[in-house]
């Protein structure tokens, strides 16, 4: 039961990781498409899960999770994420989110997080959030399946929470969307991920919206 409790601990929005400041494209989409409703939000979150998270963030997370704290592997995955994330604000946001995540774990006594934080500071690693989650979660006792589920849940809940704070949907509508996304997250984690899996993402609408958002004078979220 303890691994499950640890997964709940890490999926809890109350765990401080800086994620609340990032919309990962949602704010840009709402600016482009006024009147976005709960049905469209569900399609959007599902698309993000299928075309970005499952084949990209999840794969990066698993590769970092499986390397057993090997910094060379973690740094290599980190560099791959950096090189293959097209939009600058998504790259920078992912690094800042990762730095905050490491700051929390390092301060509460996780040795690997402290080492990764120092590696980011020295430039050895970049600190992308999915990579840091994979590495640190392997050290706090989550199993591989729970790590994937936790990641998928935090991505979906983060997108939906951003949409709620932007006023696109109500808090209860958001929970309905999130509940509808849970079977998809489970299904996507069932895909086998071989050790040499490539990072693949194709979510042009989210990318374009995030790129436009970076130029906005007024914005609530960092990306």
């Amino acid at each position, binding site marked *: 039961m303890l691994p499950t409790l640890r997964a709940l601990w890490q999926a809890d929005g109350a765990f401080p990781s800086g994620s609340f400041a990032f*919309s990962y494209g949602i704010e840009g989409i709402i600016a482009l498409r006024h009147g976005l409703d709960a049905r469209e939000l569900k399609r959007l979150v599902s698309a993000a899960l299928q075309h970005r998270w499952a084949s990209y963030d999840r794969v990066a997370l698993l590769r970092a999770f499986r390397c057993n704290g090997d910094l060379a592997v973690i740094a290599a995955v980190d560099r791959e994420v950096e090189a293959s994330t097209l939009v600058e604000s998504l790259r920078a946001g992912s690094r800042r989110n990762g730095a905050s995540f490491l700051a*929390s774990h390092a301060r509460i006594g996780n040795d690997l997080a*402290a080492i990764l934080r120092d590696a980011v500071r020295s430039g050895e690693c970049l600190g992308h959030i999915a990579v840091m989650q994979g590495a640190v979660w392997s050290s706090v006792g989550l199993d591989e399946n729970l790590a994937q589920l936790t990641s998928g849940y935090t991505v979906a809940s983060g997108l939906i929470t951003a949409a709620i704070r932007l006023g696109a949907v109500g808090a209860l509508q958001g929970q309905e969307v999130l509940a509808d996304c849970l079977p998809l997250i489970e299904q996507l984690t069932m895909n086998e991920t071989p050790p040499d899996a490539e990072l693949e993402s194709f979510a042009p609408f989210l990318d374009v919206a995030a790129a436009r958002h970076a130029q906005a004078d007024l914005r609530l979220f960092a990306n």
Partner: protein
Amino acid sequence: MLDKLRPAERTAAHTGPAAARVGIGGPVGCGKTALIEALIPVLQRRGIDFAVVTNDLVTKEDAERLRRSGLIDPARVSAVEAGACPHTVIREDPTLNIAAGDDLEARFPGLELILFESGGDNLASTFSLDLVDWWMFVIDVAGGDDIPRKRGPGLLRCDLLVVNKVDLAPHVGVALEPMLAEAVKVRGGRPVLATNARSGAGIEAVADAISAAVLFRV
């Protein structure tokens, strides 16, 4: 070079923050940025090595204002977007600010003090002691002389309450002395300082309070 040592074989760096961290919170328009602008030359004159982290709500206005002020090396000013949650970024989840402070410390070895300016908020705003060692809350007389009576947690729990824009008191129908006396009373005698950030009145006293509280310079 990267090495492949397991974490247990490397030295974990659980070092605490080297620079003292001071929070400056308060409602929108109370003069937090103006207070920092007024503090900068005073701290510089005292030879204090410092940097600033700003938390803007929807823009980078405050960070840009400080960077363009010519008062401080722009590299010493970091901006953290608050994600629409000025409370969260200084209290429930201060990790973005912690990371910004850590980054400043790494870039400026010898840094003694980091000022964290919160986004404009309300009287319930308080700083997490995970983020800061000591914090002040700023209100201004133009907000009304009943603000101390409202006893918001920010006003009550801060280490120092600053009542700014005291020059405006006669123009907004505020009796300053009773307002200050009430502020002291609701705070149980804890420190209250009156300032006019634009003229510099009271700023030396704020710098004295910071120096005594976290830099141990009296």
